[in-house]
């Protein structure tokens, strides 16, 4: 075997191990979610069992009621509402502010820029308690508003739109102004249609971001009817450490990771574009 040939075989071998490493945890979760309780306790086989419909039906409709946890159906619904509210809110708010800082000259423009930039330096993790108090003060605990509104401010998305708008030729603006179009018409009829692909890319990234929120819903919700599915899992896993219900926990895990994974798989191109645009 020549050395090139050996190198190719070794490359494929390493890549197969790598992909297996990425897939295995989710595959095992799927396997666990298709067996009944006794099977998942006496040593799980490596292939799926026959209890898929039973288990998923149970978590969706019934959940782990005996632990005071709601069924997963409503939690998934909450996650959808919150993720979509964050996504649409963030896109709308960022388009508007990106438009303001590129297409207008006004005093405090630089100050506005820096205040927006501050969001990048202050992730929720570093200001947990006071943010909680602010939201509580507004009476927004246990509400969809409290779960989504504080997360729609975004420096990265604003800068993304600024960057997109900077590439729009000035001649277009001049032509629009000569034709008598004001800023709102220009934004609605020219800038937004021209940023379609960027909006799609941002949609994918923000949906994943919103869906995968953990600390925020953990702080915001006491009422189980507002739990999102990602944070709900933690309660189930904790309960499972004492009285194992792994087949149900893993069914929930699969249901919870499916929506963002489907979005990434279906919108691969927009996903990669969004990733590079928002981060770099």
């Amino acid at each position, binding site marked *: 075997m020549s050395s090139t040939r050996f190198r190719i075989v070794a490359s494929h071998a*390493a890549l197969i191990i*790598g992909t297996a490493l990425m897939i295995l945890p*989710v595959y095992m979760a799927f396997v666990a979610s298709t067996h009944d309780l006794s099977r998942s306790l006496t040593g799980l086989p490596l292939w799926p069992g026959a209890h898929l419909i039973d288990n998923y039906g149970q978590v969706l409709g019934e959940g782990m009621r005996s632990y005071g946890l709601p069924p997963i159906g409503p939690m998934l619904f909450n996650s959808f509402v919150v993720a979509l509210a964050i996504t649409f809110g963030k896109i709308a708010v960022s388009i508007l502010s990106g438009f303001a800082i590129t297409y207008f000259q006004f005093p405090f423009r630089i100050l506005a820029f820096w205040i927006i930039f501050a969001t990048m*330096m202050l992730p929720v993790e570093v200001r947990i308690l006071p943010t909680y108090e602010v*939201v509580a003060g507004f009476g927004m605990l246990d509400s969809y508003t409290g779960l989504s509104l504080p997360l729609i401010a975004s420096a990265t998305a604003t800068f993304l739109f600024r960057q997109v708008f900077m590439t729009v030729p000035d001649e277009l603006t001049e032509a629009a102004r000569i034709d008598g179009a004001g800023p709102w018409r220009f934004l609605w009829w020219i800038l937004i249609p021209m940023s379609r692909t960027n909006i799609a890319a941002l949609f994918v990234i923000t949906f994943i971001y919103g869906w995968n929120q953990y600390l925020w819903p953990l702080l915001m919700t006491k009422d189980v009817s507002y739990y999102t599915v990602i*944070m709900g899992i933690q309660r189930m896993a904790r309960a499972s450490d004492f009285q194992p219900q792994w087949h149900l926990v893993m069914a929930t895990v699969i249901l919870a990771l499916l929506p963002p*994974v489907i979005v990434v798989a279906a919108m691969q191109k927009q996903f*990669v574009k969004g990733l590079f645009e928002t981060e770099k």
Partner: protein
Amino acid sequence: MRGKRVTFPGMAVPAILLAPQLAVTFVFFVWPAIQSLRSALFRQDAFGMSEEFVFLDNFIKLFAEPDYGQAFGLTLFFALATTVLSMGLALLFAVLADGVVKGAAIYKSLLTWPYAVAPAIAGVLWWFLFNPTIGIFSRALAAIGIDWNHHLNSGQALALVIIASAWKQLSYNFLFFLAGLQTIPKSLLEAAALDGADGFVRFRKIVLPLLMPTTFFLIVTNLVYAFCDTFAVIHATTGGGPGTATTTLIFKIYRDGFESLDLGGSAAQSVILMLLVGTLTIIQFRYIERNIHY
């Protein structure tokens, strides 16, 4: 910051345009941050009824506390281990995926989708694989004589959260390394090959230096990820334990503030983490500004 040459007149319109973003930013970001700073300088009684100005006392107490120093050291170790493990494997897979012809597209999509998995779920997945009684990995380890129990063994608990955190971040790093590799001109590598440089030399002398900007960018984002986002991994699995074996800075802020109700101490910790994350963000932002040409 540059704006457009051709702009619209008026001040009312930009004020309206910026209002939602600035309002949300001020109310939910800037104001709480100021509050953090403020309560870091005060001491509250247990019922929140009164407070007194203590200046830097909370910080001094914090650094005198062995717990905090331990959490700090632990966090640095955790962040470095997660970053090195995740970036190292991602670079390896990116170089290999960039080099193969057959199946390249399949490898790429199979290595990227875990980006969509939430950190909390990544934690639970690995928590399950290593479950002391039924996890397939812990059973495999038992077969070769290693007793795995992350409920009792501190080192193993830490290893678990590092593995789960690195796994979750691998896709992200992989995509950026792959993009970086694709910007390297193939002609450069071919010229080096003609000059007799073998694969390893080409990697070390050409690929690695040209990947430096990507690497640097990723180090900063991975550290920020490890400082902040991994809260979900830890909270959903070890809960900071056993003992304080996986209590990172962010986890300690949460626990001291929400469970022990030590408001001043928690706020002081918040301020320190804010400085840390803020510095990293500025470094990253300056770097991006320099490398992106509009």
